[in-house]
C-alpha cells in the first residue's frame, strides 16, 4: 500500500513538473549541490534554492540585463539559462565579488561615486563590468558603453555608472 501511494504521488509530482534533479556546480568559489526542479531557471535556482538573492530579476525574458551572472567568466542572463544547463559550471554572482571580506574596487567605486540609486540593476551591471575588465583592463568609455548596453538602469542616466567603471580602469579607487 505504502509503496503504491508513494509511486502515485511521484507521478503527480511529475505532472506538476515538480520532479527534482540533483545539481552540482561551483558558485562564488564554493562547490554547491542542490536538488531542484528541472524547469527552474538558473536565476530561480540561485535565488530560491541557494538563497543568493543578490541576483535580481527585471523581466525574466532576457530583455533587461538585471539578472546577469558570470558563467565561466562570461556574462550570462540567468533568466534564460536552466539550472540543469549550468551543471559543473563556475558561476559568480554579486555575492562573490568581494575578496577576503573586502569589496571589489568596482563595488567601492559604485558606492563612492553615487552610481547606485535604487540599486536594483547594479548587481548585473557590476558583473558585466567585471567581465569586461577581466578581458580588457583598459577599456575606453565607448567600450564600457558598448559592454553595458544590454543592462538597463532607470535611475542613474548611466553617467555615474560609466564614471565609476572608468575610475576603476584608472586605478583611482580609494
Amino acid at each position, binding site marked *: 500500500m505504502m509503496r503504491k501511494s508513494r509511486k502515485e504521488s511521484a507521478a*503527480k509530482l511529475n505532472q*506538476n*513538473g*515538480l520532479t527534482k534533479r540533483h545539481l552540482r556546480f561551483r558558485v562564488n568559489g564554493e562547490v554547491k549541490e542542490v536538488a531542484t526542479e528541472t524547469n527552474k531557471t538558473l536565476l530561480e535556482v540561485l*535565488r*530560491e534554492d541557494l538563497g*543568493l*538573492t*543578490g*541576483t*535580481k*530579476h*527585471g*523581466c*525574466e*525574458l532576457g*530583455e*533587461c540585463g*538585471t539578472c546577469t551572472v558570470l558563467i565561466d567568466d562570461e556574462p550570462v542572463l540567468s533568466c534564460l539559462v536552466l539550472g540543469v544547463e549550468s551543471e559543473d559550471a563556475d558561476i559568480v*554572482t*554579486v*555575492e562573490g*565579488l*568581494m575578496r577576503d571580506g573586502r*569589496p571589489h574596487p568596482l*563595488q*567601492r567605486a*559604485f*558606492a*563612492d*561615486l*553615487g*552610481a*547606485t*540609486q*535604487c*540599486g*536594483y*540593476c*547594479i*548587481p548585473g551591471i*557590476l558583473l558585466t563590468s567585471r567581465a569586461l575588465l577581466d578581458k580588457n583592463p583598459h577599456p575606453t568609455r565607448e567600450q*564600457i*558603453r*558598448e559592454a*553595458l*548596453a*544590454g*543592462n*538597463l*538602469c*532607470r*535611475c*542613474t*542616466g*548611466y*553617467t*555615474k*555608472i*560609466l564614471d565609476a567603471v572608468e575610475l576603476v580602469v584608472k586605478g583611482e579607487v580609494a
Partner: protein
Amino acid sequence: MREKKFSVIGKPLRKVDALAKTTGDTRYADDLELSRMLYGKLLRSPLPHARIRGIKTDRAAKLKGVYAVITGTDLPERFGIMPSTQDEEALAGEKVRHVGDPVAAVAASSEAVAEESLKLIEVDYEPLKPILSIEEALACTEESERIHAWNRRANIQKAVSFEFGDVVQGFEQADQIFEDTFFFQGNAHLPMEQHCALAQYGPEDKLTIWSSTQTPHYLHRALSKVLKLPMSRIRVIAAPVGGGFGGKSDPFSHEMCASKLAMITGRPVKFTLTREETFYVHRGRHPVKMWIRTGVKNDGALQAMHFRSFLDGGGYSSYGLATVYYTGALQTVSYKLPAYKFEGVRVFTNKPPCGPKRGHGTPQPRFALEVHLDKIADKLGIDPIELRLKQLVEPDSITVNGLRVSTTGLRECIEKAAARAEWKKKFRQLPYGRGIGFAASAYISGAGLPIYWNGMPHSGVQIRLDRGGGITVFCGSTDIGQGSDSILAYVVAEEFGVDPADIRVVTADTDLTPVDLGSYSSRVTVMTGNAAIQACRKLKEMLVQVAGEALEVPVDDLEMAEGKVRSQSYPKRAISFAECVEKAETKFGTLGATGSYSPPKYPANYKGSGVGLTPAYSYSASIVELSCDPETAEIKVEKVWIAHDCGRAFNPLLVEGQSEGSVYMALGEALMEEQVFRKNGLHKFPSILDYKSPTTLETPQIETILIETNDPEGPYGAKEAGQGFLLPVIPAVANALFDAIGVRIDELPITPDKVLRALEGRLKPVSVPSFDFPPPIKWRPGEGVEVPQKS
C-alpha cells in the same frame, strides 16, 4: 551656541546604503521569504470593458496546492489614493474597466501551481463597448456608456476651470496672439523592480506587510479601510524600492489580496508581478492633448494666456484629481503672467489607469508652454532666451493664481546654462542637421497639502540617543533610491557634529517610525530635513547644557564638531559626544526627541488653490544640442546642459545623480517611450524589448550646473532636487530639432517617422477636442488671506 561651517552638508559623501546595494545585501521585497510562505497570483481581465455575469472558482480551489481563491465579493470595499475618488476595487465586482483589471486572486504552494489554478477559474463576461481615446470618452455621454457610475457627467472624471486676473483685458492689450496645439503621449515608469508585496497575519490577529511602495502611510490607511482592520493592527514596511518614479505611490490590488489571503490561510502570502503586469498596473504619465493661446506685446512681454488640457485618465481615478489641476497650476511660476485662464478635463477610458510619474502632470503643459514660447520668439525675431529673461518671476512674489514664490535662481540657471553651452555662438548658426534648443521650468518641493485633509504634520522624525553615543533616527520616509535615508543621516550628523556613517537610520515602518507622507512630489528632503533639524535641536539644548557645566564654558561658545562638544575659543576644552550623552542622560533621564514639519500657510483660498502650493519652487533651465539626419530622421542627442536651482545641494553627488537620471528619463519620453494600446485594449508594447527606452548608447553627455539660492523654508536652504530637472529637457529637444532641420514636432515622442512626415509636409497639427468646460472660478491676486512668509 555659535553657528559653524557645514561639515557634512555639501560634501560628496557615500550614501548610507550605497555599499549594501553593491554587495547584494539590500533586501528588496521579493528577496524576502518566510517559512510556510504561499505564492499569490491575480487573474486579470482579457477584455477592456465588460460586465461580470459570474465567476466560478471551485475547480481552481480544488487543485492540489491551492489554499485559497478570492473574488470581488471577498473585498468589496472600494479604495483609491484620493479620498474623494475612491473608485478602485481589489478585485472587480460588477465590471472590468481595462485589460489587466484583476478579477480573482489565488494563494498556492508555488507560483507554478498558482498560475495553473488561474486557468481553472471561469469568468462569464458580457463585453461592453470599450472607450479608448479622449475623443471617444468625451463623445460617450450617454448613461449607458458610462465606465464608472459615481461621477457626475458620464466618463468625465473631473473638469476644472479658472480665470486669474483680467484675461479679456490682457488679450486686448496684446499686439499679437499666438495659438498652438500639442500632444504628449503617455508613457510608463518602467522601474527595474516589478511590484511585490508579502503579507503575514499572525495568531495575535495582526497584519504585517512588506511592499515595494513609495507611500507606506497611505497604504496603511487603504489596507485598514479595505480589510476592515484598525490601523493599530496593521504594520506596513516599505522594503527598499527598486525604482519608483511615482509608479509605486498608489495602494494596489496585489497588496490588498496578499493581505486578505494571508488572513484567510494563516500563512504568509507573496505576490510578485510579472513585467507584463507592471505595464498593465501602470499609473504612468497621462496622455494629454493641449491647446494654448497667448497674447504678447511686440517685445515678447506676456499679456494673457489661455490654456486647455485634456487628460486620458484610463480606467480609474488614481491621482487624476490632482493631475488635472497640475496640468494648469505651474504654468505661472516661471514667467510673469498678468492674466491666465486654465481649463482642464480628465476622462475615463478603458485602459490601465494613469497616475503620477516624475513631474506629475507638469511635464506635459511645460512641453506645450516652452515650445509655444520658442515659436513666439521665432516669429517675433527675439532670441528665445532673451524672451524669457525679460519677464522672469521675481523672488518673494505671488503669482497670478496665488502661488507664493520665495527664492528663484532661474535667471542664474538660464545665464549659466547659456554660457556653458555657448548658446549665442550656436543658436541658428549650426549647420543644417545640427541644432540647439532651450527651455526652462519650475517644480514644487513637496505638495503644500496632504492627500487627505488633516492638520497633522507632513513629516515626523524621532531621534534616540544611546548611552554609548549611538544615534538612531526614526522616520516614515521611504528610500526609493533617491537617498532619503542618507538625507536623514546627513542632517543629524551635521547637527551633532558626528560622522554620518555612525548614525543608524530606521525608516518606512509604520510600527516603528513616525509618519512621513511618502516619497512623492519631491517633498522628502525639505520636510524630513526640517523635522530632523527640529528633533536634533531639542536634544542639543540638553547636550550643550551639560557640556557647558562640565567644561565650565558658556553655552554660547560651544560647538559640536568632530565627535566632540567643545569650546570654540579653547578647542581643547572638549568632551566626547558619547560622554556628553552620558552626562545628559544622568541629568535628564532617557534621551529622545521628536521633530515635525508642516508646510507654511498659503496666500490664496479659492477652491482648487491647494494644488501647486509648496514650501519652495525649484527652477531649471536646459539646453540640448542634437543632430538629425535629414534622410533617415534619426536623432542623436549630443549633449545636454542642465542648470538647477536646488536651494542647497545636501550632497552634490546625489543631486547630480538625480539630474542625470531625470535628463535620461526626459530623453526617453521625448524621443521613444510610449504606452499605447490596440483597438482591443491590449498594450502594444508590454515588454522591455518592445517598450523602447534609452540604453547607455543613447544617453549623451550630461553637464549639470547647480545653483544654490538658500531658501528660507528649506533645511539649510535646500529645495527640491528629484523631479524638476526632467521638465525643461523635453521641450528643449523639440526646440533643438527645429533649430536643426526647421520642422516643429508638437507631438511626443518625436520619432523618425513623424520627423520624415513633417519634412514632407505631411504631419498634421494636433487636433484638440471641443468640450463644454464648467464656468470658471475667478480669483485675483490680493483676494483671500495674505500670509507673511516664514523667514
